[in-house]
């Protein structure tokens, strides 16, 4: 017997149910926010968190990004990098700690209310609507906006010209690098005040990766703070204003990108000497 009374016990018969695309974010009602002035623009402050009733995955972990900065989270597999991002976005249960955005404590907000507050999030996987066209993906990104978003769409197309060319094609038919561009473009459509990227270069070729990094720097230059998780630690730290090395859900090293690249300990453990 399974412990999960609402699971399917391995049933994969899709003629009765359509599990593909089913969500994993548990619905949760938003609580109150309150002013908490000072500190960086976005900070997940000493977070201890886990999924549901499961064990803690993050232990007193702090991640922050300030205006005009790129902050990068690196670390070995299973270090809790993606979990840290999800915790900042309210997608798991926070047991201790706070999340503050622009002088406001938003720890109790649901993920969708954080979007409305100006946070943009690009998940690591399933980050586009595969069955919809590129343009529809961008339109869905702008769903919360009731004003005219054609300007923003034009800006996204300027940033990623290939998307303009393919705007009437289903996003699922695009290459890996193009999909990531759609994903980032979708998140930019809300005109976010801060952008969070979970491994934007996962699964793309080195050439495409360089191009994506260039684009991300370009986005950062428009003034949007960027918090991102990266597998390619060296390359990411080179463009980072601030770097966090996580190990087993806790902060191991923190510093500017250059400091971390120069730190012999970090080099030995994570950058391959």
């Amino acid at each position, binding site marked *: 017997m399974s412990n999960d009374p*609402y699971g399917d016990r391995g049933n994969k018969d*899709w*003629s009765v149910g359509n599990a593909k*695309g089913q*969500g994993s*974010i548990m619905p949760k009602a938003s609580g109150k926010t309150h002013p908490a002035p000072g500190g960086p623009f976005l900070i997940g402050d000493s977070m201890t968190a886990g999924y549901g009733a499961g064990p803690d995955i993050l232990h007193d972990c702090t991640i922050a990004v300030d205006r005009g900065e790129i902050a990068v989270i690196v670390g070995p597999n299973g270090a809790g990098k993606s979990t840290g991002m999800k915790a900042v976005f309210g997608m798991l249960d926070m047991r201790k700690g706070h999340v503050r955005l622009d002088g406001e404590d938003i720890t109790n907000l649901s993920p*969708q209310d954080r979007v409305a507050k100006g946070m943009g999030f690009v998940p690591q996987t399933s980050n586009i609507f595969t069955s*919809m066209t590129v343009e529809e993906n961008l339109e*869905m990104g702008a769903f919360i906006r009731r004003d005219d978003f054609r300007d923003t769409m034009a800006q996204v197309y300027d940033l990623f010209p290939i998307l303009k060319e393919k705007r009437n094609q289903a996003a699922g038919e695009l290459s890996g690098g193009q999909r990531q561009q759609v994903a980032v473009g979708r998140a930019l459509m809300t005109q976010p005040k801060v952008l969070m990227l979970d491994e934007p270069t996962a699964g793309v070729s080195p050439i495409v990766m360089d191009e994506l990094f260039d684009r991300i720097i370009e986005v950062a230059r428009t003034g949007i703070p960027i918090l991102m998780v990266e597998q390619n630690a060296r390359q990411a730290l080179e463009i980072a204003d601030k770097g966090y090395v996580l190990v087993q859900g806790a902060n191991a090293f923190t510093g500017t990108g250059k400091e971390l690249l120069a730190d012999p300990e970090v080099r030995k453990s994570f950058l391959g000497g």
Partner: protein
Amino acid sequence: MDLLNAFIALSNYVLIPGIAYGSQLALGALGVTLVYGILRFSNFAHGDTMAMGTMATILVTWLFQSMGLSLGFLPTALLALPFGIGFAILLLLGTDRVVYKFYREQKAKPVILVIVSLGVTFIYNGITRFIIGADDQNFLDGERFIMSARDFKALTGLKEGLAFKTTQGITIVTAIIVVALLFWFLNKTRAGKSMRAYSDNEDLALLSGINPERVVMITWIIVAALATIAGTLYGLDKSFKPFTYFQLLLPIFAAAIVGGLGSPVGAIAGGFVIAFSEVTITYAWKKVLGYVMPEGLEPDGLVQLMSTDYKFAVSFVILLIVLLIKPTGLFKGKSV
């Protein structure tokens, strides 16, 4: 050889009834496919939702008839249809609030919801019988034919008659209007696109600021309308009997799966495939062949492949063939 008379006979017994029945199945299958695509489960309660909506339409029709309201040559039921739809909307939204919402909040896997919908089926089924009874109900009034066989013969002088029932005409016209509206809604409006986005990727829809509960609500409203319209048209064309509506589940699901579950275009195509297969396989071809075959070669028997009692076997066999050979259906649905 008498091709013209053969064609008239074919139209009279196969084409027109097939198109009308196909439209009814297509409307039913659209409801099933929407629930499958957006709420992610096969809704076994769809047949009984159709029965409940139709029942409400019938009760209001009787009320109007007793008040002397009518639409002239059109059936009074069309006037009562919006009330039936309203009832079905309240019913489905209420069921969602009381039953399905709980499971959605637990992120229950689809297979759990399938069984939950089976429970809902039995409850709807019981309520329908309790209110209107298990017997046949006839609620058709107004002009019976747009063109009767006798008029057609008098008009054309042909040996074969072509009857075109008012209900068949209404079915076809309504189906075209409803399908056009639905496609426009899904592809062009903001709410429709948000439904497709939610169907594609729930988490990302949430991260884009789409409210899942709103998507679910809009879906149930559309499904209630589709089910009531399909049920009422079927009831007008044939007759209303709660058990028949439960049985309709099979051809409706067969239609949705043949077209590809989750694909609205597929549901329509599937509806017609199933309808025409049923009609052609259970039709006695003696008459048509009598006109087409050369002199002396006319068949003596009925040339009926299967008795009409077995019409459900047809959809069942088609369902099996599709699941064995092309499980995603004709239009690439989502099931594998």
